[in-house]
């Protein structure tokens, strides 16, 4: 390769970099960009307001579920494959992470990585037979599998291996320091979101969207459907796995309950509330959900009951979610206040 073509390549990289820089700059000047930055700064400053373990815990839970909901939204919103068994990846990674920390004494981050990768392996394992199914059956098949996982892990017969109804308990938290734990989760959340949004905007994201909008057309134009669906499935499983591992560590243990349809429901309700196919909407949905759930902390069933009603109403009347559109409407109000 000649020096000329090398420098040309360099120039392109530089151009691309400066392109993305100006993109970021422009983005930060938009209302949406500013709002995101304000929210992020707000999240960074929370520990200055309170170091209370309980209050920070609410935020941490919301961050974990932001990642989880975003993993579902990525699959459903970008590739049109609806999973009702997102809890499978969440749960299996929770178990594997806990196991490696508790019994093999691996550091938490290594266990988390292993847990999420096992989640990916599960994604592959389920994906291969399940992706023969068209959309709706895939969703139902994943749900059934989640239920089976729930019963298997709950089973007394398998208790010596799988831990029975107690699961794995007494695993140490990421850090004894609540503030440090908070920031670690914040970093996980931001990184996961950046990666998911980046994939969505990349060439692969375009392929995913073309599959979602017209899979027959996409196949006709030479896209290997199974391959890309499988990749999307694995990416989604990976982030669901990250969330599951973090959740297990945050709760200092894991039990078969994580495989219930309820956890898949969590992901769906949060992503739908925020707005499907937006990724960042998932975070809004998750924070909204956990703050609201705090009001009913005495009666957890009531909050799920109310959110089931909300989800029905959102899907029925507001296809694009509510939180993100409302937030974007804020701009109009803002403009109005400024008299523009």
């Amino acid at each position, binding site marked *: 390769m000649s020096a000329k073509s090398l420098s040309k390549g360099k120039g392109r990289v530089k151009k691309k970099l400066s392109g993305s820089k100006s993109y970021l700059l422009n983005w930060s000047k938009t209302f949406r960009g500013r709002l995101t930055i304000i929210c992020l700064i707000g999240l960074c400053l929370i520990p200055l307001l309170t170091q209370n373990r309980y209050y920070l815990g609410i935020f941490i839970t919301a961050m974990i579920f932001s990642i989880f909901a975003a993993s579902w939204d990525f699959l*459903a919103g970008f590739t*049109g494959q*609806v999973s*009702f068994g997102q809890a499978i990846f969440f749960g299996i990674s929770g178990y594997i992470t806990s196991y490696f920390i508790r019994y093999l004494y691996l550091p938490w981050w290594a266990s988390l990585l292993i847990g999420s990768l096992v989640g990916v392996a599960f994604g592959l394992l389920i994906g291969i*037979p*399940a992706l*023969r*199914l068209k*959309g*709706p*059956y895939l*969703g*139902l*098949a994943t*749900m*059934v*599998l989640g*239920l*089976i996982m729930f*019963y*298997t892990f709950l*089973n*007394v*017969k*398998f208790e010596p291996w799988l831990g029975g109804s107690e699961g794995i308990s007494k695993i140490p938290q990421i850090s004894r320091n609540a503030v440090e734990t908070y920031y670690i989760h914040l970093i996980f959340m931001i990184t996961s979101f950046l990666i998911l949004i980046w994939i969505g905007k990349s060439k692969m994201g375009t392929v995913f969207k073309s599959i979602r909008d017209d899979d027959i057309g996409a196949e006709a134009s030479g896209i290997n459907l199974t391959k890309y669906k499988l990749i999307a499935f694995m990416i989604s499983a990976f982030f669901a796995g990250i969330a599951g591992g973090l959740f297990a560590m945050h709760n200092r243990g894991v039990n078969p309950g994580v495989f*219930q*349809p*309820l956890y898949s*429901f969590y992901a*769906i*309700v949060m992503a*739908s509330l925020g707005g499907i196919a937006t990724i960042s909407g998932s975070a809004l949905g998750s924070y909204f959900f956990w703050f609201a759930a705090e009001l009913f902390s005495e*009666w957890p*069933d*009531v909050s*799920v*009951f109310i959110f*089931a*009603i909300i*989800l*029905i109403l959102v*899907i*029925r009347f507001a*296809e694009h979610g509510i939180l993100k559109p409302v937030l974007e409407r804020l701009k109009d109000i803002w403009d109005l206040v400024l008299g523009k």
Partner: protein
Amino acid sequence: MVPIAEVIIFGTIEASVYGLLALGFSLVYGVGGILNLSHGLFYLLTGYIIFWTYTTIGIVWAVILALIIIIIVGGLSYLLLIKPLQENHVAILIITFSLGFFVEQFIKVFGDAIPHTVPSFVGGAITILGVPFPSQFFVILIGSFIVIAITGLFISKSKIGKSIRAISQDREAAMLMGINADRTLMYTVMISAALAGIAAVLYVPASSIAPHMGWDVLSNSFAIVIFGGLGSLKGSVVGAFILGYTRSFVNYFIDPAFSALVPIVVIILVLLIRPRGIFGKKEVY
């Protein structure tokens, strides 16, 4: 000899109940192309309505009331939730899933989460091959056979039944005959609710109900329907029997722990070997 008799009897009972459940699920799929994730709630809610009311109004009226309510619930769930979203399959899946959750949580919030049962219509036991079985088992057997037979006749002979078949074979052509596709789908969802409700009427006295059970009903119905071929009525009945006997066999001879795994094993095997299911239709052109 004795365990064989038990395997067969228990298998037949499970099969006949699941036959009723899968039949309705498959009908709705055939007519509307819809996988109704709230299918389990028809079973669950019927059981609970009977449980909540039988002490005050007596078991017979409780059953009648429950079936009427569940048919109305079926019709309303179609009119209010499914029909407006008909173009969007993802939305239908999510909304029926949340409807299932709504009912589960409704029962948890206004009732409780522990299993309950309701009394049988008939007491006593009948002994077969030296094994005593509760008489309710025979009510289940006879009852579900009668209902499946009536449903079969209804689908093949009645005007609504014929329009149901026409729509599931060719929706556009059926509309050109003057069949109202939306109305037919509503009837189908109501029939599906009634069948699941009857399954609950028959089976709950011999077992129990708890809020989470709707999902088990759904996953077993789905396994049967995938096995028999989506949209094939014969397939759902045959699939129900195969699943019922397999579960009962695994229960007795291998380990009850594994019988919950049967549906998923069935689904995965069918998907890998014969994705159309055993009675899946070929395209005829």
